[in-house]
């Protein structure tokens, strides 16, 4: 049986030579993501801004304008309506009314009654209310989680490799996270708690790619003492390329089936993850390894560790 080989043996692409182009592309992507975040901002869900959200499903597609008029007619503040998954499902968002839970309950019932009156086929699939206090905490915890995991990763990479690797990994990860957030600013897909989990996962898997390549660079640095750093990095990236490709492919297949078949609630989550995997692969192959040259990695980087630490690492 002949096996599929999409990356031929002895592939040798000059990634290092392309690095200035890659750096420029990365910079542009990062900056435009930041610009998008600052101008359009994220479409934060009730998890993060507090408020009331309900998912309403109808038997037939409904006109958003009509529904909006119904909800706004109740005068409970500025409503936001959007289709969710299809034209027959709508997310309605409202600010929380002042007062206690009874006030919230009243708004929920009034809105449901008003919608049911005009649309007999409405079914309310989900109701969520989050108070401002809780949403503030959720934002804080989300930011702490992302910053902390990046910090932990930088330390671990430094500890397992050298500081250069820690820096290049973090630079690439910041790019990955920023571009993913930029994607959410661009598409205005709802940014909720699930997306924070997606971002953390992207960090995890983008890291996988980088560790695999870093590991190979370290191995080759010890093996080929006389080799120039440029060709050595190219060699390492090319040697691991078919692995990078195969894993990205497997992840894309798994996430692709989730994106197409996993239902509407997970759509934003899966989209973020899929994009993040692609972005992470790009930054691993084109950016973080080439960045090591600029940071001054060379055969000397692991030289003193060759006797003691290297053995310890290698015998695992």
């Amino acid at each position, binding site marked *: 049986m002949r096996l599929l080989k999409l990356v031929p043996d002895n592939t040798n692409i000059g990634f290092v030579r392309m690095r200035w182009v890659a750096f420029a592309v990365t910079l542009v992507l990062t900056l435009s993501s930041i610009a998008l975040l600052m101008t359009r901002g994220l479409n934060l869900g009730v998890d993060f801004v507090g408020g009331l959200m309900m998912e309403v499903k109808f038997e037939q597609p409904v006109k958003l304008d009509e529904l909006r008029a119904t909800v706004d007619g109740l005068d409970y503040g500025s409503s936001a309506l959007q289709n969710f998954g299809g034209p027959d499902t709508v997310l309605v968002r409202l600010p929380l009314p002042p007062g206690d839970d009874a006030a919230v309950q009243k708004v929920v019932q009034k809105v449901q009654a008003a919608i049911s009156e005009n649309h007999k086929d409405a079914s309310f699939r989900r109701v969520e209310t*989050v108070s401002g206090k809780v949403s503030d905490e959720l934002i804080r915890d989300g930011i702490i989680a992302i910053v902390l995991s990046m910090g932990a990763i930088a330390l671990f990479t430094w500890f397992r490799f050298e500081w250069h690797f820690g820096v290049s990994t973090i630079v690439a990860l910041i790019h990955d996270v920023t571009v993913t957030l930029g994607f959410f600013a661009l598409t205005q897909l709802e940014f909720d708690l*699930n997306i924070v*989990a997606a971002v953390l996962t992207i960090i995890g*898997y983008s890291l996988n790619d980088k560790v695999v390549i870093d590991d190979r660079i370290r191995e080759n640095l010890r093996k080929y003492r006389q080799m120039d750093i440029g060709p050595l990095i190219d060699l390492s990236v090319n040697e*691991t390329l078919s692995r990078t490709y195969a894993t990205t492919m497997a992840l894309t297949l*798994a996430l692709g089936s989730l994106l197409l078949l996993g239902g509407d609630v997970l759509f934003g989550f899966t989209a973020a*993850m899929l994009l993040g995997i692609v972005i992470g692969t790009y930054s691993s192959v084109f950016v973080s390894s080439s960045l090591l040259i600029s940071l001054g990695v060379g055969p000397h980087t692991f030289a003193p560790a060759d006797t003691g630490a290297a053995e310890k690492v290698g015998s695992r």
Partner: protein
Amino acid sequence: MLEFSKVKIWSIIAVLVAGFIFAIPNAFPEEQVQAWPSWAPKKQMNLGLDLRGGSHILLEANADGLARANIDKMEEDALSELRRAEGGAIAVGDVSNRGGRVSFLVRNVDDVDRAVDLLRNLSMPIGVTGQRSFNVEVADGNRIVLTQTSAGRTQAMESAMTQAVEVIRRRIDELGTREPTIIRQGSQRIVVQVPGLQDPSALKQLLGKTAQLEFKLVDITADPADVAAGRAPAGSQILQMADTGQPIAVKRRAIITGDQLMDAQQTLQQGQWVVSFRFDSAGGRRFARTTQENVGKPFAIVLDNRVISAPNINEPILGGSGVISGSFNAESSNELAILLRSGKLPVELKVVEERTVGPDLGADSIRAGTVASLVAVLAVGVFMLVTYGRFGVYANIALVLNVVLILAVMSLTGATMTLPGVAGMVLTIGAAVDANVLINERIREERRKGRNVRAAVETGFKEASRTIWDANTMNLIVAAVMFAFGSGPIKGFAVVLTIGIVTSVFTAVTVARLFIVNWLNRKRPTTITI
């Protein structure tokens, strides 16, 4: 890397068999599993509310309210203690409980020391630090100031929350809902999860009420004009009638409170819904005495500072039981009976977060999640097969075993599968093959370099293992951070991810290697397609 001892082989097989045994119940409906013989494993994965539908409610205690209640209680206790002091009542004046402390003047300076001793005994020691719940200080010679210490506040909150969980459990049980989860979260929050509950308004109605029942005498001396203007005579307070909102003056001191209730039931009396109640024996005696002394006067039945009714005492109530009538219907009388039976909440609770998922959305999500997982396994499986041939088959076996093990661990530990958890599962399906990809690619490379089959496989596993170790450690770090700081959905995702990382290293590295070694030893191939 290619030798397996007999013990190791059997341990691996034992783990896999156990995995299958504990994963199996998840493939059957719950009712069917419960009917299995007692020796069979019955534990199924917990499904989160987002998958089976239901209500999630996060309640937060009102800390300020509790502190104020503590101060009020302290004032009452302190004054009554001083009144009943041995060696003569200690007269005090200028009592104030504002600013989070009780302060008053002792009229006779000679009594100050005696008063301080008495009050010290009122505050409770906390833990082993020697700190007490209240500080007793003397200012300006004859002013005594009582302040609650921070340890005292913490302890008061702690015991109030423990009690609140109990009260909530009793109230929810009374509703007859199925397997509610009630857990404390942090120092002043409680999570209530009720699967299958569609309309949480009745539940929230029950949870949001303190249900403090008090019987108070109506202050008939109060000037109606003053009452209308909201001014109460000394020792009295203005409350509102629950149904009409009319102000009414009642004595501050309660004759008796709901703490002494034994039972409460809704009853029909002359076509009207009422709540009948019965006091315990001490409460009954006290109620009898007070009603004897106040025949002909009205008293107020007060619930959470609103007057339900203010009937006249026509005759002494000696049996220790009575009825509360008001404008009740079947539902509201039942609700009040439940509230009274389950006791009052020691602290006011507010709903700060609520999520309700309908059962059809949950069912849709389960269906979509299952289909997506199966398609993911299939797609990844085909890809691995066409890319790595026989070695891809071994990776695929490892992949399926990994899914089985994740389900087994989740069932055994009682972890909760949520919708993001399903996503974590699908992600693990894609990620678990990464280890096999690394190993297979390395074997390919070593073969290209001209090593023989055995050496190539051996080096492949050895070299790839280090990378696999590094990569998975990092992913574990991220998952741990997610678990520690994530709430709700993020936690559910982190749980599955963590389990998946551990099981995938086992199946992808150890189990796949066992298969490959077994094949190498049996067939002794001189060339391999990879």
